[in-house]
């Protein structure tokens, strides 16, 4: 009896989970990046392949506890025909194929993000994370970022990046903002650096998640395909305000982006 109950419970649990996945009860937000569909396809293929293994595994377990869970049986013990060999072959072949497929297809998705160099015409934006805010810096008309001086960083004077506009000509026209705006359908290159702790730059809709590591500058690049306003959240534990460390990214049409940048420049 307990064997049959166990089998029924396992089947119900398995079906409930399968339903939640197939019906998208909880699901990814719509993708808005050029590389995103590759990642989504990879996630869906994994859900399919691993999902079959999951259902098969649970059903085999349920079937065996249903069939052989009768402790009062006086039936002679049977061993699995062929012993362990078919199981080992199954594991090596089926899981091996799954691994090969996922590795090859998956490396394509990964490579499309990380192995391709950024487009030389990319819009370049410098991103700084600190406890517990993101700041963004545009190079201004000269196209050059001024150097950073950590000792000049001051929340009080709102010199978030530690720029020396008196001595560094490149810094003079740098535009510093608390929100990120990018033009739609144009490649964007972000350089991530942290002023204090580890942080992370995560925009679900862009399918971009990248840690900030203090001491190094990490470039990431992407192209957004839809306009709109999306949340940037920190996903690397950075201290007490971690849960509330966020900013917004606005994906704008080129004219809107140009206007926005002008407005921001005027506010510096």
């Amino acid at each position: 009896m307990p064997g049959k109950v166990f089998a029924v419970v396992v089947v119900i649990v398995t079906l409930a989970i399968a339903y939640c996945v197939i019906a998208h009860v909880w699901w990814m937000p719509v993708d808005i990046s050029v590389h995103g569909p590759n990642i989504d396809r990879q996630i869906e293929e994994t859900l399919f392949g691993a999902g079959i293994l999951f259902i098969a595994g649970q059903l085999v377990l349920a079937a065996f506890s249903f069939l052989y869970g009768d402790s009062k049986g006086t039936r002679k013990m049977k061993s699995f025909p062929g012993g362990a060999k078919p199981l080992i072959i199954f594991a090596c072949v089926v899981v091996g194929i799954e691994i090969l497929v996922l590795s090859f297809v998956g490396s394509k998705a990964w490579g499309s993000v990380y192995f391709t160099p950024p487009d030389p015409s990319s819009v370049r934006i410098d991103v700084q994370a600190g406890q517990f805010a993101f700041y963004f810096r545009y190079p201004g008309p000269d196209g050059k970022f001024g150097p950073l001086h950590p000792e000049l960083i001051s929340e009080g004077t709102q010199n978030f990046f530690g720029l020396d506009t008196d001595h560094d000509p490149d810094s003079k026209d740098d535009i510093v903002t608390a929100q990120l705006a990018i033009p739609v359908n144009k490649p964007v290159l972000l350089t991530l650096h942290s002023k204090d702790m580890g942080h992370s730059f995560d925009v679900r809709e862009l399918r971009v998640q990248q840690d900030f590591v203090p001491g190094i500058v990490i470039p990431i690049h992407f192209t957004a395909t839809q306009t709109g306003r999306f949340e940037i959240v920190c996903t690397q534990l950075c201290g007490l305000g971690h849960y509330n460390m966020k900013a917004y990214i606005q994906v704008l049409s080129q004219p809107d982006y140009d206007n926005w940048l002008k407005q921001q420049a005027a506010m510096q």
Partner: protein
Amino acid sequence: MHDMTAHAAAHHAPPQGFIRKYVFSVDHKVIGIQYTTLGLVSAFIGMALSWAMRIHLAWPAASIPFLGTLSPNGAPGGVPTPEYYLSLMTMHGTIMAFFLLTAAPMAGYGNFMLPIHVGAADMAFPRLNMASFWVTFVGFVLACATFFIPDGPPLSGWTAYAPLSAVGPVAGPGQGWGQNLWGLSIALFCVASLLGALNFIVTTIDLRTKGMTLSRLPLATWAWFINAWVSLLAFAVLLPTCLLLVLDRLGGTSFFIPGGLVVNDKVLPHSGGSPLLFQHLFWFFGHPEVYIIILPAFGIVAHVMPTFTRKPLVGGWKVITYAMAAIGGLSFVVWGHHMFVSGMSPYMAMVFSVPTLIITIPSVIAVLVFAFSLYGANMRFSTPMLFCLGFISLFISGGIGGFFLAQPAVDSYLHATSFVVGHFHFTMGLSAVFAAFAGFYYWFPKMWGRMMNETLGKIHFWLSFVLVYCVFMTLHLMGLTGSVRRYSQFVADFMVPLTPTNKFITIAALLLGATQFIFLFNVIWSRFKGPKAADNPWHATTLEWDTTSPPPFDNFGGRQMTVYHGPMEYDGDAFVMQTSTEKSIAGT
């Protein structure tokens, strides 16, 4: 193999007096019970912390009574501050991962059973063994002490990533002496684990009794033996990592802190260190650690299940043992999969992805061995067997998540979401706990000489099994939305709509916790009032069932044990003890 007579003669005499007998005991059985008890205490502390976290996540304004008393600053009026939430989370992870999951299934059961399994009178180094426990205990006290110091416990998570963990109090509340004590506590835990691992290895190699060849070792002991090697190599890396971390904090060094960091508009006086170095060192330990937790679980299930299926495992001792050894070996080359989005070279991500996927092959083989060993059985549904079945189901579910997180492209979306939380709770958390429950119900009669209550055991199983799925599978699914872990409140726009899901998880988690009190009651009641256990209540074959319940001080009452069979001589009601001179019935 040693001549056991000479060894037994040289062995220590039974101690007299309460302190030498029950407190500073060198008897492996007492030490095993001490570790198991420490694991139980840790489990309930860790669970209470998770309750506080879950209540706060679902009802952020709710007052949690005991928290206000424990920490008037951290939880004024019983409502945890964001930093205190992180402290609760850090200590939940630390206490559960180290003092329950690492300590109980290996050092707890292993200490009690391994010498008996191999037919020895004690561990090879009994005093070292006593030192292991008491060093662990001091580590545990240091970890708990963080709750009672003014700063409170650290908030940088059980992974203690630098520089948050390294720069000192400027990083935030709890990053003062709380983090120092944490570093010292874990360093002590490492020392104890290294001593314990040496003891396990030497005992298994040197103290096996006559006839106890490696092929006749009980599978739990095989798992502890393999695991001791993994522990020896992994904790040897965590120990210096903790010490370097403490040096960065107290000694002014910069192993993990780069130059030019600015906190509160002040440049920190450090330069030249690397946060990524910390991550590499931590995960070089941290990933084997996951297997340090799960290998004993495999061993326990492999040891317990044949007793209740009444037949040997498919593939005998070899297939499961080789699978465990392969997992142990491969576990050292997969750590980078924790760091796909960390900023390490994206080419390295590919290098770490492949072995991470390959390690699923021995894991799948192990699961198939367990599942297909049920084929053609006449199962006896005692509580330990139910927990073995539960283990298989949970491990399948948890293992499936591994396919996702092993791929850099998929991980770049799921990283740091509640999918990861669900995944590791299924695999190294609840799978290991279910196996530990199987072992606990199975060995309780041997450890305390009394039977546990079967009805309570079964209620405990059924409620736990269903509720574990409600909590941790929902976390997986919620992770698909990108829901971020380690947030003390759901204030991100996209996470606000997840509040009902969160409440469901919290209610299930509270019920799951409450269910564990059925277990606790069963343990305490059975310890004193349970029916007396026979020497071999499960009709099992291994050496622990060949002596009294509980065993005498020298384990076998002066008998020299000689082994003639493997541990899985079952054929339905018939079975042949390892020491029996009867003919083999299962050919193991």
